[in-house]
């Protein structure tokens, strides 16, 4: 491995002091003065109903109310991948909490009060709350206009049904593969809906200036994508929209794309000259952003006695909610990768995006992989046990390696899955039994592997602007979001490595689309890779300009020049040591005549994966190269179960992930700790629960149980595997989302090891485990 000066060295976060001191600004901190107006939405109390009429008269009489806005004013559709949404409900509502209208007022209190006085008459319609009901013959059709919605070419809706997208993948002959197996195991796994539950709720402030300029400040992972959707939905030119995104208090996918921000942007269009603010309450945050989609996964896998998996059939029914403009791509991502990181000859995947009358589903850390990996890695463990093969060894025998053919035909990138499996297993002393600390406690160990590819359009681009300053320091502007992952620091390290300017002399700012270069979105764990490549290109361009200036002013051969310690040095002239600060803005004086060469060093970089394609056969999924690469890894876990209560205490989690090259190792260790904890939250405590009318029963942090500092494992062991990604900046690839993907099946596998009970529905709460244990007892 190449030894770098800044890349690969743990580097303190450049946003650390600001955040630890509480000085970092978030959208809700911004001050807009006394002209600021406040908005509150009128939400549907019904899961499915026709809107018969909206009476705004009483609301308009409330003192302080400026305007009541309904869907009449905004009739266009919008959506990231499938245009199935309106800014406000038009003729019907499709989930409890959907926005029907909004009140703009001078105070938040007046807005809230008036919102309660908007009278909406509904005709209640039959509703569907799970995929079975939505797929049943004669089920009420949620989107009769499905055929007419704009969509990306890789979606395959079934008009006349509630199937918004059906991703099929066929490889080999599954029936033959299953006949060839010595053991075939079939079961169904259930994953409920989850909430991102970021600390910061969504917030937006928008203002249309008198000159026709729309500025939007939002808590978002996707400033440029927001600008694009605002332009399309509101009929504005992109040049007239400016999106500013201050720091974000937790994203996890929940602040990707566009949700409530478009309400703020639209309302601003109606009160020109006044900023309008919309700030979700915690309950609204739960109900009307994105939720992680629910999943019922039916799995059949066959394997031979020697441990070779012969065939896999995976049918995934996604409860995608009332609108799937983003969520359908989660379904798509799973539908081409739900084999997990295994080499399997015969594969059949069916991933169905099903409309239901529950809140819209969407992206959540793992983007479908966290969901399907619960069943898949549970099933893999059960097969290993059924064949009498050690689960670690069973995974090793089938593990994908670089160069393997992927289920859709493309080639697997270089990867270190075998190393990850071995190191995760070693870290938890796999195969060695541990004594139980008390008579009512049983100890169990689990293992699970994972993979994930970024799910992106084939032409998702990133760009960077870079400029040198008089003192030799550097400013970089990019439009990826710092959402806690350490992205700004990684970008500084990449530029630092090229320019020999230390990261603490490089400022990387959060986005303002007027100033910062383009970025598609901060999702898919791709910004270190994609935007990192753009920053690398910008830094290379700046370096070339610097060396060219020295060449032109002093005559040195460019090939002999290099940067070190913020100086230009030469391999042929040991006396040359030109500090960058002396000439990167003001140029170099030519000794001969006192004229200057050079000028302010500015540079830009741009990156797009030019090798991806989503063109494939809709019936087989064969063809194209939809994924840029996969990141792989494995994890091991030790837990204790109190058999009298069902309570689980996680003792140790070891997680190994192949980062390609770790740009900032300490940030990856943070991702591992965070991903493990978030994964434990979903498998042990969290679950969105609805009543039989589709109303969320636990839209509070009192009853949506997130793990706390008291619930963390005794030990989290981060393990970084490094098998270079050839097209990544310094060999890097993304690791952010991946670290939570294996956690749910890891716990399920360890629970079975501890108490011999297999749980196939998440979450594995103490209560669910207790009930399963007592059922086993008869």
């Amino acid at each position, binding site marked *: 491995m190449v030894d770098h000066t800044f890349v690969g060295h743990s580097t303190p976060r450049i946003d650390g002091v600001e955040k630890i001191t509480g000085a970092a600004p978030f959208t809700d901190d911004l001050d807009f003065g006394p002209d600021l107006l406040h908005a509150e939405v009128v939400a549907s109390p019904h899961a499915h109903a026709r809107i018969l009429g909206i009476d705004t008269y009483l609301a308009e009489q409330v003192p302080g109310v400026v305007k009541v806005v309904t869907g009449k004013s905004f009739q266009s559709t919008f959506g990231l991948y499938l245009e199935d949404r309106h800014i406000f409900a038009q003729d019907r509502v499709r989930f409890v909490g959907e926005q029907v209208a909004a009140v703009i007022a001078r105070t938040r209190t007046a807005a809230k009060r008036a919102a309660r006085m908007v009278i909406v008459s509904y005709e209640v319609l039959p509703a569907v709350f799970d995929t079975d009901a939505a797929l049943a013959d004669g089920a009420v059709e949620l989107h009769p206009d499905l055929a007419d919605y704009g969509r990306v070419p890789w979606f395959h809706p079934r008009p006349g049904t509630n199937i918004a997208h059906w991703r099929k993948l066929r490889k080999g002959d599954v029936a033959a593969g299953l006949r060839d197996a010595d053991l075939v195991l079939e079961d169904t796994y259930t994953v409920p809906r989850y909430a991102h539950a970021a600390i910061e709720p969504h917030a937006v402030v928008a203002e249309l200036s008198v000159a026709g300029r729309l500025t939007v400040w939002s808590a978002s992972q996707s400033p440029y994508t927001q600008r694009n959707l605002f332009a399309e939905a509101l009929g504005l030119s992109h040049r007239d929209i400016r999106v500013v995104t201050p720091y974000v208090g937790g994203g996890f996918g929940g602040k990707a794309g566009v949700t409530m921000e478009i309400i703020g942007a639209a309302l601003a269009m109606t009160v020109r000259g006044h900023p309008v603010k919309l700030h979700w309450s915690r309950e609204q945050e739960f109900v009307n952003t994105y939720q992680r989609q629910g999943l019922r996964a039916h799995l059949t896998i066959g394997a031979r006695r020697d441990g070779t998996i012969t065939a896999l059939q995976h049918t995934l029914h996604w409860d995608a909610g009332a609108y799937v403009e983003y969520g359908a791509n989660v379904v798509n991502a799973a539908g081409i990768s739900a084999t997990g990181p295994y080499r399997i000859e015969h594969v059949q995947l069916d991933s169905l995006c099903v409309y239901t009358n529950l809140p819209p589903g969407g992206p959540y850390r793992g983007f479908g992989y966290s969901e399907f990996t619960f069943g898949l890695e549970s099933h893999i463990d059960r097969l290993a046990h059924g064949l009498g093969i050690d689960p670690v060894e069973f995974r090793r025998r089938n593990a994908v390696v670089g160069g393997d053919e992927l289920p859709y035909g493309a080639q697997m990138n270089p990867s270190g899955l075998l190393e990850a499996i071995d190191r995760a297993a070693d870290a938890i002393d796999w195969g060695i039994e541990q004594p139980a600390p008390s008579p009512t406690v049983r100890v169990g160990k689990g293992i699970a592997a994972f993979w994930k590819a970024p799910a992106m359009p084939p032409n998702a681009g990133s760009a960077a602007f870079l400029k040198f300053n008089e003192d030799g320091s550097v400013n970089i502007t990019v439009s990826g979001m710092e959402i806690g992952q350490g992205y700004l620091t990684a970008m500084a390290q990449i530029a630092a490595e090229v320019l020999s300017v230390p990261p603490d002399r490089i400022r990387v700012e959060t986005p303002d689309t007027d100033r910062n270069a383009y970025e598609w979105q901060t999702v898919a764990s791709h910004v270190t890779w994609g935007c990192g490549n753009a920053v690398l290109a910008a830094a290379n361009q700046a370096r070339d300009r610097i060396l060219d200036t020295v060449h032109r002013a002093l005559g040195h051969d460019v090939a002999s020049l290099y940067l070190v310690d913020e100086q230009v040095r030469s391999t042929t002239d040991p006396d040359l040591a030109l500090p960058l600060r002396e000439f990167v803005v003001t140029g170099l004086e030519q000794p001969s005549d006192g004229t200057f060469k050079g000028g302010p060093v500015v540079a830009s970089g741009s990156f797009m994966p030019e090798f991806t394609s989503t063109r494939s056969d809709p019936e087989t999924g064969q063809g194209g190269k939809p994924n840029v690469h996969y990141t792989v890894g494995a994890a091991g876990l030790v837990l204790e179960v109190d058999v009298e209560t069902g309570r689980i205490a996680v003792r140790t989690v070891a997680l190994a992930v192949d980062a390609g090259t770790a740009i900032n190792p300490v940030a990856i260790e943070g991702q591992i700790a965070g991903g493990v904890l978030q994964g434990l939250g979903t498998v042990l405590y969290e679950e969105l*629960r609805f009543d039989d009318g589709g109303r969320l029963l636990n839209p509070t942090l009192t*009853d949506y*149980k997130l*793990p706390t500092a008291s*619930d963390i494992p005794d030990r989290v062991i981060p393990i970084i595997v490094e098998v270079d990604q050839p097209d990544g900046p310094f060999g890097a690839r993304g690791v952010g989302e991946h670290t939570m993907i294996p956690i749910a099946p890891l716990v399920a596998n360890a629970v079975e090891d501890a108490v011999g009970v297999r749980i196939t529905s998440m979450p594995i709460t103490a209560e669910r485990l*207790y*009930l399963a244990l007592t059922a086993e007892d008869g």
Partner: protein
Amino acid sequence: MTISLDLAYHAPASLDETLEILSEQAGRTVLLAGGTDVVPSLRDDLISPNRIVDLKRVEGLGDLAVIDGALHVGCLVTFSDLIGSPAVHARLPVLAEMAGMVASVGIRNRATLVGNICSAVPSCDAGPLLLALGARVHLVSREGVRTVDVDDWFEGPRRTAIRSGEVVTHVTIPLPASGHGAAYARLSRTRGEDLAQACVAVVLEPGDRPRIAFGAVAPTPVRARRIEALLHAQGLDAGAIDAAVGLVAEEVAPITDVRATRRYRLAMCEVMLRRAVTAAAGRAAGDGPVHGTPLM
């Protein structure tokens, strides 16, 4: 987030002034101590008072002391105060054990023991333990002082024996004899901040009838009098504890809600009772688990 409401806010400096304010008829009045229940309820529009009377400046309401063989806990004494009190640790460590399980450090720094039994939600942590300890609630109004046995305090979810115009100044907890053993066990979904799904307090005094109370498994915290009587009659050997556990279903009436099912609550009450009685007996004998060790 700002809360803007049309209401009057009073912060009297003395008890007399407080009672004077309360005697004026002014509609819906809320007393404020730590505010950990009142403020979220205001924010979520669960209550809409006309006025708030903040007790934090009233002198003398923050006393925490042993007086005449009883612990006097003023209405401004927080759970963190209890945890940090040498007197509590020396004479009534189970009170600190319970306090240490309430919410999180930040909440415990504000929330008061008296506020906990005044908001009187079925899952309140202080309720069962004060029942098991035989505490008394002391109230004052312009009409004079009044004392209510904690057994008569809880009348329903969020309903107590307090009357209009009254302030709970303090509770008194008779200190158990030396050689006593007590335990508080609590079931919750996470180990961190959570409401109790069910809880039990056990107090064993040498020669005396055991006192046991459950929380979160009935509209109010409830004494388990049949279990108390059985253990008093049969002692604390394994057979007696088995028999006591067998009575749990007759003592509590848990419901199914978003936090747990009736079946799980009931089963866990049995486990908690066994573990808490065993721990309390062990502590009485000098070899029980250290206070604060989670029993669940």
